[in-house]
């Protein structure tokens, strides 16, 4: 069990030297083998893997108001999200989706941070933030259109202040920073949160976003889910210093939180968002977690990582952890879990039905919304295409 010390400010954490292992370990060409890293002594944790609440003088106050009912709500969010994710994975295997990027294992990082956001905050996700989308009130079936191949987005970003999924790694961190610069210009007290992964941390855009965010003191939280693997590349191939420590070089605090601890993720993200709202600028939150499945349904983790590694992380499962806490420390009765089973099964069924009934877009959708103000060439090609399609209809008639 590792708990942050009571007086730990972000700056104090940053001052700590790199973990011995990270500094000493020679990068090797092989990526297999169990990684021992528990996230280091700097990991913020409020719930142990056994579901025991541990005190944290810095962050406890950010979850002091969380009632047992709200804890059950977080649990429900995680279970529903996992059920949705499992259904999407199954639908891909059945040929209903072209691809799926599973969030299995990252439910706490996403639900904890997602539930920390306020309605008027704005979220810039990658393509794996199904749990954050859930927290923002986006109908999960809307997330599946792009994976089924009927659109490249499929929801109005401004309906839930949840931007479109971004496939190019790290691009959205700059959009989030620019948006946050706009929020500050407007004098609004809302905040922006940008999600990205450990692999994206190698991209120049992410580092440019850190720098713009810092230089303009933008109200943006950079939320990195370090799930240990960028497709088949382990973190050793991405970085030689702990990720959260990068923030120091840009002039804002960075913290590492146990990404499988929903309560800690909620607390730390609330703290970071509060800083943003108070005009204190960006924060980097590194949620130290694990992607239990494949990067997407296209890759096979058994080719690049050891089973023991996954098994070690299964013991830290975010859902089991909160369940243990709910069962032992609250008056949550069995009916709650039983009802949730029924509810999550209903979600799976609905997702299945909606996906299967999802219509292909009309042919002319190719030409829709290419430009806001129109474009002569698009108009011309649309007309030619429509005439070509119509010629087949005539032939059949």
């Amino acid at each position: 069990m590792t708990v942050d010390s009571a007086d730990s400010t972000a700056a104090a954490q940053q001052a700590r030297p790199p973990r011995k292992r990270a500094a000493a370990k020679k990068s090797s060409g092989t990526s297999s083998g169990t990684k021992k890293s528990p996230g280091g002594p700097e990991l913020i944790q409020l719930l142990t893997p056994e579901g025991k609440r541990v005190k944290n003088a810095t962050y406890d106050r950010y979850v002091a108001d969380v009632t047992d009912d709200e804890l059950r709500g977080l649990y429900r969010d995680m279970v529903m999200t996992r059920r949705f994710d499992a259904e999407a994975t199954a639908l891909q295997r059945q040929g209903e989706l072209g691809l799926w990027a599973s969030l299995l294992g990252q439910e706490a990082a996403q639900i904890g941070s997602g539930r920390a956001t306020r309605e008027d905050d704005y979220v810039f996700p990658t393509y794996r933030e199904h749990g954050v989308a859930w927290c923002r009130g986006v109908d999960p079936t809307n997330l599946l259109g792009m994976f089924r191949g009927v659109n490249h987005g499929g929801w109005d970003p401004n309906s839930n202040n949840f931007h479109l999924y971004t496939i190019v790694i790290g691009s959205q961190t700059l959009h989030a920073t620019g948006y946050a610069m706009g929020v500050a210009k407007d004098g609004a007290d809302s905040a922006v949160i940008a999600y990205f992964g450990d692999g994206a941390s190698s991209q120049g855009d992410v580092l440019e976003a850190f720098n713009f965010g810092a230089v303009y003191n933008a109200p943006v939280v950079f939320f990195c889910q370090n799930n240990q693997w960028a497709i088949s590349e382990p973190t050793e191939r991405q970085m030689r210093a702990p990720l959260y420590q990068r923030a120091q070089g840009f002039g804002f605090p960075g913290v590492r939180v146990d990404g499988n601890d929903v309560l800690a993720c909620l607390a730390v993200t609330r703290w970071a968002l509060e800083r943003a709202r108070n005009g204190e600028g960006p924060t980097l939150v590194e949620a130290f977690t694990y992607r239990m499945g494949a990067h997407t349904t296209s890759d096979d983790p058994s080719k690049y990582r050891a089973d023991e590694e996954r098994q070690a992380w299964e013991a830290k499962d975010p859902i089991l952890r909160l369940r243990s806490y709910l069962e032992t420390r609250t008056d949550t009765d069995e009916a709650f879990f039983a009802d949730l089973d029924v509810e999550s099964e209903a979600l799976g069924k609905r997702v299945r039905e909606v996906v299967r009934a999802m219509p292909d877009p009309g042919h002319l959708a190719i030409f829709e919304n290419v430009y806001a103000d129109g474009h002569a060439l698009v108009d011309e090609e649309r007309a030619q295409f429509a005439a070509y399609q119509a010629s087949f209809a005539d032939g059949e008639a």
Partner: protein
Amino acid sequence: MAVQKLPIAKAINESLRTALENDPKVLVMGEDVGKLGGVFRVTDGLQKDFGEERVIDTPLAESGIVGTAIGLALRGYRPVVEIQFDGFVFPAYDQIVTQLAKMHARALGKVKTPVVIRIPYGGGIGAVEHHSESPEALFAHVPGLKVVTPSNSSDAYWMLQQAIQSDDPVIFFEPKRRYWDKGELDTEAIPAPLHGAHVAREGSDLTLAAYGPMVKVCLEAAAAAQEEGKSLEVLDLRSISPMDFDSVQKSVEKTRRLVVVHEAPVFLGSGAELAARITERCFYHLEAPVLRVGGYHAPYPPARLEDEYLPGLDRVLDAVDRSLAY
């Protein structure tokens, strides 16, 4: 005073000033655009008058400039970003192509990204590497972007106004070697449509189609040809995407000959597209194949060789002679 005689750089400055005055959502962003007023002084005095919140000096990071401009546009702002030189746009190319160009379509029309990207482009100023390129075809090839380039002060002023008002992303190429060419600007005129070509000189024997810095060369070529008794029509295309093929067709149906001139490499350039389209549209009108004059398939050369690389009067007139010889 509505009508004044101004160099192109000053006309752009006036245009930015007007846009900043008219719409509080307009922002000017880029490297050195504030206190210095830009390396070409195009943004001179704007930060002094509109403040650091409207005219924003940025870190030296092109992807960051465009990426944050996208975010600002999503928040309702209308950023006008300056890329310092043509060859420096490539660090931002990913953001422009994978993000800016596609966001409206991906959001099924629910969001708009009205970002204008100003790029001083082209050669002829004796600069070092990466300071003299003409990458317009690379942007015109990307659906979702609009690409325009003025050749004179009036267009510089008005086309920039129109680009800023457009809800689409616009790549605004500025012919940097013409920045100090003076021309008339009527700030109370009714401007021509942004994407229409303009007949810069009427003629009957052959059409020269050009844009940006090459319009002046073509006008000089037409004047020289006049002395030899040849009547050349000069079309200023103004917009590269979309391109006004109708106006070119109309001119070619009259003159029956077309020579396209641009600084960019000829291979797969905007002249190739125009040649193909006009051949399709005007096959029975043409007396000669459409000819192209432009840069070579080689990196932009060192300054001491740029006069050989860039189309000049002689190369244009040579192509005119070849066309007329058919």
